[in-house]
């Protein structure tokens, strides 16, 4: 048992060291999170401005007051950056180059290896982004009166943990398409942008209108960005929070079963010659 734990701890450490190897690259990647926040803050500030045709200070757009919208923009962008994957390219490379056979003969589960490595790579980013989020919340609180309760913060941690796992599973399933398609680098990017949009990572889902918004709310994607964001912003609490966490866990279970099924079907097609 301890030996099995050691294997995955080693994979975790591998991911962490990989993330910290190119430190300049790491810092620049974090800087990339700033641009969308500035752009969207500027846009919403203009749309809520008195001269734009807005009403009183309690004026709502797409169901959000100005303070709520700014809170959403900041938290959603940080969550989006936190749950972002990248392992699907390595997975595809292993399938395409035949390198996967190295793992098949080793006493380690490939899914567990990638999961532990992903968690390791994310841990450094999570520590830094967690600090950034705390600072951002203090600034938001001073500027717009935004507040997050202790209970909301706890709910957010639980929702975020599920979001990590759910997003990993979503992109694991997408990555497994490599068993059937030879060149899918662009497809990953296409899937990523669609999934982020459907997750509420760019704008809240209410922007799409009631019918499209409701349809997107049924899918698992919103539990990766919009749900944790809404929890921290206090828009989801109590029974809704418990229901949301249960739904995210159920989606994770369902996707785990789906991932295992795709993996098994993919392995039956997998051929590695001379690697």
């Amino acid at each position, binding site marked *: 048992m301890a030996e099995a734990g050691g294997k995955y701890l080693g994979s975790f450490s591998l991911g962490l060291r990989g993330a910290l190897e190119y430190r300049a690259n790491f810092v620049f990647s974090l800087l990339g999170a700033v641009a969308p926040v500035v752009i969207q803050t500027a846009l919403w500030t203009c*749309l809520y401005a008195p001269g734009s045709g807005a009403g009183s200070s309690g004026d709502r757009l797409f169901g959000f007051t100005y303070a709520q919208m700014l809170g959403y923009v900041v938290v959603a962008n940080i969550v989006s950056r936190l749950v972002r994957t990248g392992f699907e390219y390595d997975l595809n490379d292993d399938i395409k180059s035949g390198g996967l056979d190295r793992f098949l003969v080793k006493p380690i589960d490939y899914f567990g290896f990638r999961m532990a490595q992903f968690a390791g790579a994310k841990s450094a980013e999570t520590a830094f982004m967690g600090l950034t989020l705390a600072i951002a919340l203090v600034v938001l609180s001073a500027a717009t009166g935004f507040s997050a309760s202790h209970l909301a913060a706890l709910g957010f941690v639980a929702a975020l943990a599920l979001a990590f796992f759910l997003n990993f599973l979503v992109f694991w399933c997408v990555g497994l398409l490599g068993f059937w398609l030879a060149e899918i680098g662009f497809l990953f990017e*296409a899937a990523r942008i669609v999934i982020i949009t459907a997750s509420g990572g760019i704008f809240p889902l209410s922007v799409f209108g009631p019918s499209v918004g409701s349809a997107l709310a049924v899918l698992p994607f919103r539990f990766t960005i919009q749900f944790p964001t809404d929890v921290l912003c206090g828009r989801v609490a109590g029974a809704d929070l418990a229901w949301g966490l249960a739904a995210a866990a159920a989606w994770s279970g369902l996707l785990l079963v789906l991932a295992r099924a795709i993996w098994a079907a993919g392995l039956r097609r997998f051929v590695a010659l001379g690697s």
Partner: protein
Amino acid sequence: MREIRKHFRIYLSLVRMNVMSQMEYRANFVTGILMELGYLAVKILYVVVAFGAGRSIAGFTPDEMLVFVGTFVTATAFYAGMYMMNFFQLSTLVKDGSFDTLMTKPISLQFMATLRRCDIGIFLVDSTAGIAMTLVGLSRLSGQLDAWRLLGYVFFLLCGSAVGYALYLIPQSLVFRVVDARAIAGVSDSFWDFNNVPMIVYDRLGQALGSYVLPMFVITSFPSLFALGRMTGAQLVWGALAPAVFLALARFAWTRGIRNYSSSSG
């Protein structure tokens, strides 16, 4: 002048080779278009928000917003279709030593490293959608379309594209120092999105910085402002001068950066 003609001929040959190569891997070509359609949908979301909110943005109507976003999409055709992928690949070239091969070619190294690859699919998707959005926006605004405005618009769009190339090449010159510059390309790429909304949504300091220091707004806001008849005299002059200034700066950054290059195979 002979050198320019030679490089232009080579560029046409490179475009032809890229098209042939893309046609060879059709699945990649199609997924590339799908990817760009995804990005296009995100850009259109900003228009959806403007129309959905039904409000003016700093005095600009949703139709004018459509002109800005349409111009941004057209400029993205140049950015994503002609030079972005070269910048993203620069790290790999330096890391695996393939950059050495480019150095041996009897043509400009900067030209070869930054313009040798293009994606005709992305270029066509973005240019078609961008031009359509701009024309729809302009046609909904009465009296905005005439030959003079159209010519000026195209001129500032080309100037903006040249500034875009220079502006995104400058940080890439760091690749010879830090080797793994994928995140630099990523950050530069995220800064491109500042053009998703017109420059008028930013405060005065932001507008000044984005126009004169890191002139991202020259790329898409200036052509739109000209087409909408809202360009100031200072913007008119700077919009025409900025390409020369920033291309010279990019050249300087590139030649300085290349001195730090040490071959990984040498």
